[in-house]
C-alpha cells in the first residue's frame, strides 16, 4: 500500500510540470501578440507597452519565459497589469467559494443519484427504473445554464423565494484563528489553513455551524441543479453496477454458504461501490466546470464569475492563473480519489 502511495505521488510531479507547460503554451506561445493579449484590447501608450514587454519577458527566448511564468505561478505573484493587483490574492478568496459550490453540488448529487440508483436496481424494469433512465437522458441532454434559468424561474418568480447576495462567511475571529494555524501546528496546520479557504470548512473548524446552514440556504439552488443534471447518470451507474455485482458468482456462493440476506447485500454493495467511486471521482471535474457556469447565472462571487469577467475583458493573467489553479485542485482531487479507490479495492494496490 505504501509503495502504491509513493508511486502515485511521484506521478503527481511530472503531471504538474506538464500542467505548467500547457499553461505556458496558452500564455506565451499561442497568442499572436502576447502583449496585446495580456493587456487587453485597450489602447495603451507605447512606453507602458514596452515596460510590460520587458517585465513579462515577451522578447526573451522561450525557456526564460517559461521559468519566469513558473516562478510567478508557484510563488503566487502574477500581477494583473491592468488593475495592478496581485491576481492570486483575488483568486484565493474566491476559490473557496467555488469549491463550496462544487461540494454542495456533490452532496446533492450523492443524495439524489445513489438512492435513485439503488431503487432502480431493486425495482429493475419497472416504472421506477424507466423514470431513472429518463432522468439520466434529460440530465445529460439539457444545457446546464438552461436548467439554472429554469430553476430560477420556478423558484424565484413563482414562489418568490429570495436569497442573499453574498456568500456566508465565518467570523473574523475564526478566520484569524485559521490563518495562524500553520504557525501553531506544522504540516496539519498548513493543510487546515488551505482547507480554511473554503468558508464552509473554516466555519466548521471553528464550530460556527449557523454559517454552514446559511451556506446551504444560499447555495441549495445551484447545488440542486448540479445534482439533478448529473444525478440521473450516477443513478444509472449505481443501478448497473449493483445489478452486475448481484449476479456475480460469489454472491451465489455466499448464499450457498448460508449467509444472511444482509451479509449478501453487504458483499454486493461493496463490490458495486468500486466503479461508482471511480465515476464520482471523474465527475468532480465536471462539477468544478459546472460551478463556473453556475456562478455566472446565480451571481456567486467565486472563481467562475471571476474568470467570466476576465474573459469578457480579455484579462489574460487572470485566465492563466485561474486555469492553473483549477488544474492543481483537479489533479489533487484525482489523487485523493485514486487513493480512496485503492483503499476500497485491494486489487488496485499494485
Amino acid at each position: 500500500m505504501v509503495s502504491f502511495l509513493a508511486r502515485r505521488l511521484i506521478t503527481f510531479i511530472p503531471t504538474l510540470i506538464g500542467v505548467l507547460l500547457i499553461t505556458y503554451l496558452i500564455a506565451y506561445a499561442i497568442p499572436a501578440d502576447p502583449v496585446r493579449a495580456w493587456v487587453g484590447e485597450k489602447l495603451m501608450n507605447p512606453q507602458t507597452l514596452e515596460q510590460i514587454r520587458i517585465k513579462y519577458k515577451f522578447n526573451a527566448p522561450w525557456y526564460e519565459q517559461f521559468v519566469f511564468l513558473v516562478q510567478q505561478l508557484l510563488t503566487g505573484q502574477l500581477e494583473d497589469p491592468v488593475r495592478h493587483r496581485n491576481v492570486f490574492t483575488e483568486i484565493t478568496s474566491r476559490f473557496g467559494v467555488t469549491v463550496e459550490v462544487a461540494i454542495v453540488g456533490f452532496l446533492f448529487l450523492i443524495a439524489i443519484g445513489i438512492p435513485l440508483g439503488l431503487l432502480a436496481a431493486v425495482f429493475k424494469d419497472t416504472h421506477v427504473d424507466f423514470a431513472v433512465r429518463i432522468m439520466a437522458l434529460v440530465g445529460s441532454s439539457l444545457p446546464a445554464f438552461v436548467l439554472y434559468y429554469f430553476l430560477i424561474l420556478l423558484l424565484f418568480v413563482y414562489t418568490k423565494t429570495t436569497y442573499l447576495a453574498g456568500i456566508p462567511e465565518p467570523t473574523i475571529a475564526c478566520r484569524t484563528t485559521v490563518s495562524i494555524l500553520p504557525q501553531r501546528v506544522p504540516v496539519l496546520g498548513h493543510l487546515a489553513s488551505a482547507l480554511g479557504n473554503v468558508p464552509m470548512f473554516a466555519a466548521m473548524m471553528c464550530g460556527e455551524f449557523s454559517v454552514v446552514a446559511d451556506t446551504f440556504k444560499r447555495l441549495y439552488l445551484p447545488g440542486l441543479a448540479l445534482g439533478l443534471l448529473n444525478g440521473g447518470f450516477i443513478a444509472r451507474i449505481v443501478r448497473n453496477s449493483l445489478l452486475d455485482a448481484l449476479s456475480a458468482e460469489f454472491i451465489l456462493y455466499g448464499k450457498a454458504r448460508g449467509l444472511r440476506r444482509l451479509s449478501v447485500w453487504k458483499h454486493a454493495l461493496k463490490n458495486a461501490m468500486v466503479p461508482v467511486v471511480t465515476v464520482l471521482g471523474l465527475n468532480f471535474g465536471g462539477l468544478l466546470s459546472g460551478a463556473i457556469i453556475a456562478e455566472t447565472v446565480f451571481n456567486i462571487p467565486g472563481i467562475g464569475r471571476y474568470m467570466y469577467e476576465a474573459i469578457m475583458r480579455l484579462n489574460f493573467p487572470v485566465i492563466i492563473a485561474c486555469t492553473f489553479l483549477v488544474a492543481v485542485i483537479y489533479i489533487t482531487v484525482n489523487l485523493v480519489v485514486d487513493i480512496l479507490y485503492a483503499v476500497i479495492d485491494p486489487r488496485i494496490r499494485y
Partner: protein
Amino acid sequence: MEFVYKALKKVIWFYAGIREKLSRGWITKNSSRIREWELMAYAYSKSPIGVIGGIIVFIVFILAVIGPIISWEPYWEYKIVINESYRYMPPCLTPSCSGNPLLGTDEWGRDVLAMSLYGMRISFVISIVVVLLGAPLGIVLGLLAGFKGGIVDEILMRVTDIFLAFPGLVLAIAFASVLPQRLRGVLEANSVLRSFFASLFGLREAEYGQIAALLSIWFAMVIVWWPGYARIVRGSALSVKEMPFIEAAKLSGLSTWSILFRHLLPNVISPILVMMTFDIATATLFAAALSFLGLGPQEPVPELGFMISKAGQFFPERSSHVVVYLGSLLLFIAIGWNLLGDALRDILDPRTRRAIEYRFEKEEKKRG
C-alpha cells in the same frame, strides 16, 4: 418499424451492389459481413429509442443543412435600429396576434425562430467536426501507444495525463480565449479559408472575426476531446494485442499500420462508435456553454449559447421566451444523439446479441 428495416436493408444492398460492380464476387466473399449488417439493421429497427433518436437526428441534420438557406431574416440586420420596441417581443402564438414573429424576437429585434435556423447549422457543424476530428486523432494515437508499448506508450500516457489534468471546460476556456487573435490573422490573410468557413457555417465572410472565434472553440474542443479517446483505445488495444490472432498477423509479416487498422481497430471500434455518438451530444452542449461564457462568436452571429446568455441579462421578465425556446432546441438536439447512442450501445452489446439473432431468424423464417 418494418419500414425502417426495409429502408436500411435497401441501403445495405445498394452499397453491396456498388462494391460488387467494383470487384466481382465481393458479395459472396463478404456474405457474413452483410448478414451482420442486416442483423444490426434489424436490431436497430426494433429499438424504439433508436428509431426516435434517428428521426430526431435526421430532422436536426436537415434543418442544419437548409437552415441558413431558408431562414427568412438575415441575421446581420438589427431590427431595433429601425424601431426600439422590436427588442424582446414576446411570442405571437394566439390567433389574435398576427404579423409579429411566431416565437418573439431577441436582443436586436430579430425573429428568434429565423435566428435559430442559423444557430442550428453552427451547432451541428461544430459538434460533428469536433468529434470527427478529435476521435480519430485520439484513436490513432491510442492504437499506436497500446500496440507499440514501451517508450511510445509512456510518452503518450504522460501527454494525455497532462491534458486530462485540466477539467475540460477550463482547458477549453483557456485555449478559446487565446486562439481568436491568431486565427483572426490567418483568416484576414487567406480569402480561400475565409470563404470556405463562412459558407460552412452559413455566415457572411464579413464576420471573419467571429468565425475566428468559432474556429477557436473548435480547436479548443478538439484539444479537450482527443485524450479521452486515446486513453480508452489504448486500454482496448492493450488487451487485444495479446490475443493470438494479432500474433498471427505479426508473424505473417503485416506492417504495423495494416495490423492496426485491419485487425486491431475493428475489435475495439464498437464501444468507440457508441462513445462518439454520445459525444456529439456532449459537444453540442459544450460548444453552447463556451459561447454562453462569451468565448464564441459575438453579435451579430446567432449562436445558440450566445443568444441565451444575452437573454439571461433580461431574464425572466422580458426574455424568458428566448431562453425556453433556444434551450429546448439544444435539449432536442442532445436528446436525439443520446437516444441514438443508447440504442447503438444496446445493439452492440454482446450479451443481448443472442436474443436478437434468435428473433431475427424467427422472423426471416416467417417471411419465408
